[in-house]
């Protein structure tokens, strides 16, 4: 007998187990690993609501103001009656103006003003300044893998127990100065909060969400194999559930051919001739801009499980991802030269947690003479390759696999640190091998 995989049931089971441990468990912490688009925010909101309903005062720690505001909006959407506190900084425009329209959301820069509310949310940086006489019974720490260990140290005294949710495959937190001095210590301040937490509390229950609702059936296996080899996940939709079609037929150019390839298979690699280039490779940047321009011009329509009729592929459903900020700036300039202004162009760091229908990615190693740890970082490629619901188009110079073979990773081995698998070298090769099947070579 073969069992049919039911994504909703699998995800539901996982969520129930997590909520049970959070509400009724005895452990001081619960850790949840979530692959890209697995409903992490939904889980956080649901856990927050259930804790609040059970009468447990709750604090929520997120990493950026945008993440906090997003959670507040989602909470208010699910339960407009719930008294929610948004603790914010005393800068100008500290929170999203949309929060002002919510009746039951109180906003303040002082924690004392928010005392007694069911749920209080803020960033880790702001929570670090809060002093309490009695700690919160419960906390939820969102994006815990992107939180640094020292940031957790600053806030951990505020709560008794916590639910830690995050994506282990995304970019690790970093320090702008060397921290080799502490490598191998369980509480290395530059490590991720979860690494430290589990090093000191190895017996905490750990769960993972098994289904990605964002990634299409064409992307989930690759992302799962390349970046989560030991904790595989599935896509929530099947091969025929999503589709991308274009009203205007291809004009036979490289950008159009790669768009068609990506529409058909979910992946497209636009390969430019091998060359060593500066970071803001003008040809590659123009190629990225050309692909975006054609994506918008060709009248794309996306069909998905969300609605019965196809939805148009508009500029807000497309994003461009790069490794460096100057590359993003160059792509923005090239796009505005083509008259495109409202497509999001950003670095992997800033695209974390975001979702689009189609993404166009400038490969981090494209045109480089060397492969540094920064450019090889697994999380960077993982973020760039897992933001899309329909298709991902990668623009890259030829020769990256040779580059990888020429520069095996040479980072010094630090005693006592947990070696992260897969390493960037392996993950890059896995992704390139898959992309090679969807390659369109183009000489602009």
């Amino acid at each position: 007998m073969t069992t049919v995989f039911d994504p909703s049931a699998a995800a539901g089971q996982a969520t129930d187990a997590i909520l049970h441990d959070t509400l009724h468990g005895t452990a001081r912490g619960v850790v949840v690993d979530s692959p890209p688009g697995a409903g992490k925010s939904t889980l956080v909101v649901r856990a927050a609501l259930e804790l609040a309903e059970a009468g447990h005062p709750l604090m929520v720690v997120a990493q950026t103001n945008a993440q906090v505001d997003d959670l507040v909006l989602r909470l208010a959407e699910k339960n407009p009656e719930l008294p929610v506190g948004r603790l914010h900084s005393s800068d100008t425009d500290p929170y999203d103006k949309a929060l002002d329209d919510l009746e039951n959301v109180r906003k303040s820069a002082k924690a004392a003003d928010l005392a007694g509310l069911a749920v209080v949310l803020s960033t880790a940086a702001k929570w670090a300044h809060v002093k309490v006489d009695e700690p919160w019974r419960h906390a939820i720490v969102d994006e815990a893998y992107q939180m640094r260990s020292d940031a957790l140290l600053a806030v951990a005294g505020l709560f008794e127990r916590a639910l830690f949710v995050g994506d282990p495959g995304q970019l690790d937190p970093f320090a702008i100065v060397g921290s080799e001095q502490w490598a191998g210590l369980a509480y290395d301040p530059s490590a991720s909060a979860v690494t430290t937490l589990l090093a000191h509390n190895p017996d905490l229950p750990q769960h993972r969400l098994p289904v990605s609702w964002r990634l299409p059936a064409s992307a989930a296996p690759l992302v799962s194999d390349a970046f989560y080899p030991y904790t595989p996940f599935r896509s929530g939709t099947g091969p025929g559930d999503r589709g991308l079609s274009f009203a205007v037929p291809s004009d036979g150019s490289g950008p159009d051919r790669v768009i068609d390839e990506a529409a058909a298979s979910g992946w497209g690699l636009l390969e430019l001739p091998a060359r060593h280039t500066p970071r803001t490779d003008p040809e590659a940047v123009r190629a990225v801009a050309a692909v975006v321009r054609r994506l918008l011009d060709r009248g794309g329509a996306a069909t998905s499980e969300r609605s019965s009729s196809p939805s148009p592929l508009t500029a807000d459903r497309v994003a461009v991802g790069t490794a460096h900020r100057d590359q993003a700036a160059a792509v923005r300039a090239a796009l505005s030269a083509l008259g495109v202004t409202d497509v999001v162009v950003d670095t992997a760091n800033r695209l974390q947690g975001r979702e689009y229908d189609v993404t166009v990615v400038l490969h981090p190693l494209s045109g480089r003479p060397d492969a540094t740890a920064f450019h090889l970082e697994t999380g960077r490629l993982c973020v760039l390759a897992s933001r899309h619901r329909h298709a991902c188009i990668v623009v890259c110079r030829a020769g990256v696999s040779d580059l990888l073979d020429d520069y095996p990773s040479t980072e010094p081995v630090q005693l006592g640190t947990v070696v992260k698998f897969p390493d960037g070298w392996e993950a890059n090769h896995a992704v390139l091998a898959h992309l090679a099947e969807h390659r369109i070579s183009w000489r602009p």
Partner: protein
Amino acid sequence: MSLISTLARLEAVSTGRAQPAATVRHRHLSDRPLVFVPLTTAGEAGAPLGALVGTDRDAPRLLAVPQPRDRDLRFAFLAELADVVLPYVDGCAEAVEAAERTETDPETGKRIKVEVDLCADAPQLIVPSRAGIDLVRLLGRSTRFRRTAEQDPQAPYPAPPRVPLLGRWLTHFGERARVPGSSLLLAMTDVLGRHWATGQSTLEDQHLGALLAWIDPPEGETGAQAALRAELERDERGQLRCPPAGPATDPAFDNKLLAPAIERYDRARTALAAAEDGLQADDRLGALTAAEREIRDLVLSRTRPTWDAVWRGLDRLRELPEGAHVEERWTRDRWSFTGHRDRVLAGEPPQPRRDDAVTAANKLATREREQARLEAQEALDDPLVMAGRRLSGEAFAGEVTDVVMAYSESKRPSPRPLVTVRTDDRPHLGERTKVYRSLGGKPQSAEFVTAEEDGAYVVLRILDKMGRGKEPEPGSVPEKGDRVCFTLFEHEQRGGAKLPDPEETPWTHGGPPGEPALEAADPVTEEDVL
């Protein structure tokens, strides 16, 4: 590597001379630095072979270990080193000035000002290269837990009296050197590399001789030629004419000169021990002394060129005027020095082997803050550094072409003038990006409103530092025709949140570390007593 440093290096290649990477000196240089040129023995981590050390460029003190594997001789070396370093350190600790520090009152919990001593000067240790800094750390680690006969009469190999104290100071220097912008312990190659861009890689810049060859090539030679000579040229005995700055030595020197000399010394020592009568002993003592002198001469011959090179580097650096913020950073070095002096005087135990969770997090936070502060201050102090930031889109300079008065939409409208700047730079400005300029040493902030004519004109809204009145204070708003420079990075760093005390380390980080146990020195193994 930033674009401007790549360009500077290319220019250095084409002109054959190192190009300035700074127009002012970004590190404090003491009037009386203690220069320390150490050498180690191959094959054993941190076994000193000798050193030149001192504050007088014409009279360095030569220290040598004729048999580097002999632990007694190594202790003798460290004791001698302590005799040079500790009086120097103490000399700086004598003169103090009154200063104020904010502390938390243990009873009321309020922040109060306390009057404390601040040492008027601080010691400055200069080593030739980054590897020298590592050796300072290693010497500190290997000596600060040693016990003297006075501390522990049972200790099998007691350290000479002042050696553990030397270890504590070297550890402090080594830790402070990790703080960006600090100047208590400097590596000459790092400081020169900060101020000049050579036509070679940063790895090659670690060779002090080659680096100076690019900065100061001899008449009629390019930097590249002179650097190659410094790296490779050997004399008729096969020895490098410009010995490496150490602490590692050249293998040709080890094999051809040092090893035979040490062997002669060993033989002379064995012979002396086997002497049967006083006359024979006298003769053999003479031979031993001669063998020892030979090794001292060898050590001197390898360290003296580096010693002179360090002082030449200091000469070149002193020609640059000091950057405006250098004094402020040096004051923090003085605080750090004063703090450690007080801890030593208070009888606190040596720095622990490993930081606890809270100390590690505090150190990382401090260093990140200092790094950001250093980058901002260097750019503000030095137009050439600012040019690099402008080139990378993190700052822009230009002329004010228009100022339009505007007001905020609050009950009491405050001035929010719109300033248009014409610039040739291409800053990465996004919607409402904050920018800053220096106004009388304080940062004034503005926000980006719009760009016109493809970025040639940038319109900004000035946000603060205009006083409390309805009209901005005179001079607080740029005027038409003014040259202005705005940065996208902040000029001052906010202090981070206060972390819990180590006794209150939370469960996520392993809980409180418990009572600090007195740490013992590394146990003596068989290899230690060859």
